[in-house]
C-alpha cells in the first residue's frame, strides 16, 4: 500500500479557529470529504463553512408515516370485515366516519415518529460499540477535526493545524469509547 492513509485528530478550543483551520486545510489541498468534525454541540455546517450534510431522516419519517397510515387504514377499514360475522354496535355505521380519522391520525403519527427515531439509528449506524476515533475533550466544548491524509502529507497537515491554533494534533487511534 503505497498510498497508506493516516487519520489526524486536531482539537480546537473554539469555533473560529476551527473554521479557519478548515479553510486553511482546504487551501492546502485537503478535500472536504477527507475532513470530519466532531463537536459537543450541534455546530452547523454553515458555521464552519462545510458542505451540507445529507440526511435520510425526513424521508424515512415520511415512509414511516405512509406505513402508519397503511396500518391505520387496515385497522379502520379492513379489520371490520375480518370478523366471522358482522358486528354491529348501536346504529353506527359499520365503518364509522369520524373514528376512522382518529385511528388514521394516531397510527400515521406513530409510524412517522417511530421511523424518525429509527431513522436516526439507521443514518448514524446506531448502536455502534466498536472502537472509534474520538477525543473526550469534544464533550467539553472543544471542536475536533478529523483529517484523513496520506503519510506523505501528515507533517504538512499537522503543521498547518498547529499553526491554525490546534491545541493538539495527534494521529487518531480507534479506541473503545
Amino acid at each position: 500500500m503505497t498510498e497508506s492513509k493516516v487519520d489526524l485528530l486536531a482539537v480546537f478550543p473554539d469555533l473560529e479557529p476551527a473554521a479557519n483551520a478548515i479553510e486553511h486545510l482546504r487551501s492546502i489541498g485537503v478535500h472536504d470529504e477527507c475532513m470530519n468534525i466532531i463537536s459537543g454541540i450541534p455546530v452547523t455546517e454553515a458555521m464552519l463553512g462545510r458542505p451540507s450534510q445529507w440526511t435520510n431522516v425526513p424521508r424515512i419519517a415520511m415512509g414511516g408515516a405512509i406505513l402508519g397510515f397503511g396500518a391505520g387504514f387496515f385497522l379502520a377499514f379492513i379489520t371490520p370485515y375480518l370478523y366471522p360475522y358482522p358486528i354491529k354496535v348501536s346504529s353506527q355505521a359499520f365503518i364509522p366516519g369520524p373514528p376512522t380519522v382518529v385511528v388514521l391520525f394516531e397510527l400515521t403519527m406513530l409510524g412517522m415518529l417511530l421511523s424518525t427515531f429509527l431513522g436516526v439509528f439507521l443514518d448514524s449506524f446506531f448502536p455502534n460499540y466498536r472502537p472509534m476515533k474520538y477525543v473526550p475533550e469534544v464533550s467539553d466544548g472543544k471542536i475536533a477535526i478529523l483529517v484523513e491524509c496520506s503519510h506523505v502529507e501528515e507533517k504538512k497537515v499537522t503543521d498547518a493545524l498547529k499553526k491554525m491554533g490546534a491545541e493538539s494534533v495527534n494521529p487518531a487511534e480507534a479506541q473503545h469509547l
Partner: protein
Amino acid sequence: MSEKFSRRDFLKLAGVGAATSAILTGCGPASRYVKREPYMQMPEYNYNGQSTYYATTCRECAAGCGLIVRTVQGRAIKTEGNAGNPLNLGKTCARGQATLHGLYNPDRVQEPLKRSARGGDSTQAMDWDAAIQVVADALKNNKPEEIAFLMGMAPDHLFDLVSDLAKATGMNAPLRFGALGMFEARATLSKAAENLFGEASLPFFDVGGAQVVFSFGANFLETWLSPVSYTRGFAGLREAKTKMRGKFVQFESRMSQTGGKADEWIPLRPGTEALVALAIGKLASEIRGGAMPRAFENVDPIDAASKSGIKLETLEHLAGMFAGSNGALAIPGGPALGQSNGLAVAEAVLALNAISDNFGKPGGVYLSALAPNQSEYQRPASAQEMQEFVQKMADGKIKVLFVHGVNPLFELPTALGFGGASKSVSQIISFATFPDETAREADYVFPDHHGLESWGYQRVATGSAQPVLSGAQPVVSPYYNTRATADVLIAAAQLAGGSFASALPFKDEVEFLHGKVSALMGEVDGSISAPDLPTFMAYFQQHGGYWRNSDERVAPKAGDALNREISAEVAEFAGEGEFFFVPFVSPTLAEAGANKPWLQELPDPTTTVMWNTWVEMNPETAHELGIENDDVVRIVSEAGELEVPVYLYPAIRPDTIAIPFGQGHTAYGRYAENRGVNPADLLGQHFNEAGDLAFAGMKVKVEKTGAKKPLSRLESMMGVYGIGLGEEH
C-alpha cells in the same frame, strides 16, 4: 342478508373460522389433534341437557299455589307457577321463586340430631332408626293427653295424619299456628263471618270484579291470605278491558305496599276503622236513600271525622264514591283487625258490603269454597288459643311436644312466654328442616324434607273460585339425610303399637296420601278422573293436584247483616307512649324467608331496604324529635324493647311507627341469624273478641340511642328524597 343472519349460521361459520385459525395459529404437535375453538359458545346458545318438569305445591306459605319445577340432572333449577292450578294460574310470588334457596340452603339440618342441652349448639348425629325409636318411645311412654303436636299451616296432609292419630289415640288435637295467620287475624275474619252470615268461614273478596274497593288495612297484595290470587284480582280491578278502571281506596295508618297502589290513601287514626266504616255506611245509606240500617243508626259522621282525623268532606266524598258505584267492595284486614275492637271492625266493614248488596255476586263478598277433601273450614289457632296452650305447657300438662312447620319461638310474641313454658315440657322433638329457634330449644331435631322433596297436599283455603287440592310430590331426591315426618310418625306409631299402630296402618306416607285422595276418584266434576288409583295418582302428580271445575264459592246469607248493632267504639291501646305501633309482615320475607339469601336481597317494596329491619317514622315527627335516617332508636313497649334504625317514611301518620316482621332471628342459618330485630318482642298479651292478638293495639315510646346503622337501600336517598343534593337555589 345481514338482517337475516342468525346466530346459528354464525356458529357454523365460526366453526369454519375456528378450524382455519387453528391451522394458522397451531404450533406444536397437539394442534394436529386438538381443534382449538375460541370460547364464544355461551350456554345461552346451546343445549345443555334435557329438563324435566314436575308439578308440586309451594310451601313458602299456606296458600297452596301450584308450582312447576324445572329440574336438570336431578337438580331443581327454577320454579314457575302451575298454569293449571286455578289458584295461581301459573304465577308465583317472590317467595315462591326463592324456595330453591331453601332447598339448597347451606344451613339445612342435614341429619337427625340429639341436642346435648337445649339452646346449645352441641349436637350428636343419630340414625333414623334410633330417631324413630325416640318418637315411638315418646308416644308410648306418655299419656296421650300429655302429647301435643304444634304444627304450621302447611302441609295439610301431615295435619290430617296427626289429626287422625290424635283422634284415634286421645292425644291432644294438633294445634296449627303461623305468624301469617296471626297478622292476618284469620280468627277474627271467620268469627265476623260467623256473626254476620252464620257460618264460620274465610270470606273471599272478589277484587277483580269490583268497581270500587275500600280496604280497611287489608294488605292483600303482600302476604294476606292468598297474595298471588289477590294480586291477580287487583290487576282485574285495574285493567280497563271490559269496564271502567276500578278505584281503590285504602284506609290505614301506615302506607303498606297495598296502600301504595291505592288511588286514595286515607291515613286514619288507628283504632277508628270501625267508626269510619260505619260512618261511611251511614253517609252512603243516606245517599242511597231508604231506611237507615240499624248498624249505622248510632254513628255520628262528624264524631267519626274528628276521631279518625279524616275530614268530613273526605268521608262524604268516599261515601259518595261507595254509594255511587254498582260494584263497591269493602275488605277488612291486617292491622285494622289486630286491635281490641278488631271483631267490630271486621263486622262493620263486612256490613258495609251490604249497602252495595254484593254478597255472592261478582265483585262482591263470598265465603271461600271448601277444598275437595275438606268438610269444614279449619282455621289456625288464634293467639289466645296459643296462649292457653302455652299455659298448659307451663303447667306441666304437656310432657312431649312435637313441633313441625312452625317456629313458635320466633313467630309467637315473646310475651306469650313460649320459651319459658317450654322448660316445663320434658321432651321437645322438632321436625324442622332448618335450624330455627325452636329447633335449637328442642331435645331432638328429626329434619323433615324440604317442601320440594316432599309428598303431600295442601287445601286451598281461599283465593280460588274452584275448590282446589294442591298436590305435592318430590321434584328432587332428598339432598340430605332427612326423612318425611309422616314416614317417621307412621314408623314410630307401628313401633309404639296399640292404638298408635292401628291409627296409622300405612306402609308409608304415600300410602296414607293415596287413602286420603282416593275418595276424589269418583267425583264427576273433577279436573282429573281415572278408573284406578295408580292412574289417578299419576294424574294427580302430573297436574299438581285436583280441583273441581265449578265455582263453589258460597254466597253469604246476608239477611240481617245490617240489622244488628255494631260497636263503633274506638279501640283501646295498651302501653304508654306517644306512638301507635304497627307491626306488619315483610312482604318479601314473610315469617320464614329470612334464611333465603335472595329474599334478603330483594328490596322491600315500600322502602327498598334489604338485609335488615327498620322502623318507619314520619319525617315531620322525626324532625321534631331530632331523628334522622339511619339513626338507631330504642322502641319501648310494655312487653319489651328493641333497637332499630329509622327509615323516614313519608306515608305514615305522624303518631304512628311501623316495623316489619320477618327478621331478628337468633338462629335459622347464616343469612338470617343476628340480622335485624323481631317486632314480636314488643307485642303484649292483648286479644280482640275473636281471640286474635291485638298486635296493632300497642302504644310505644321512642328513644334516641345516638348510634347509627346505615340501612341498605336500593333506592337513592338523593334521587328519591332529595337528601344530600344540596339546598335549592
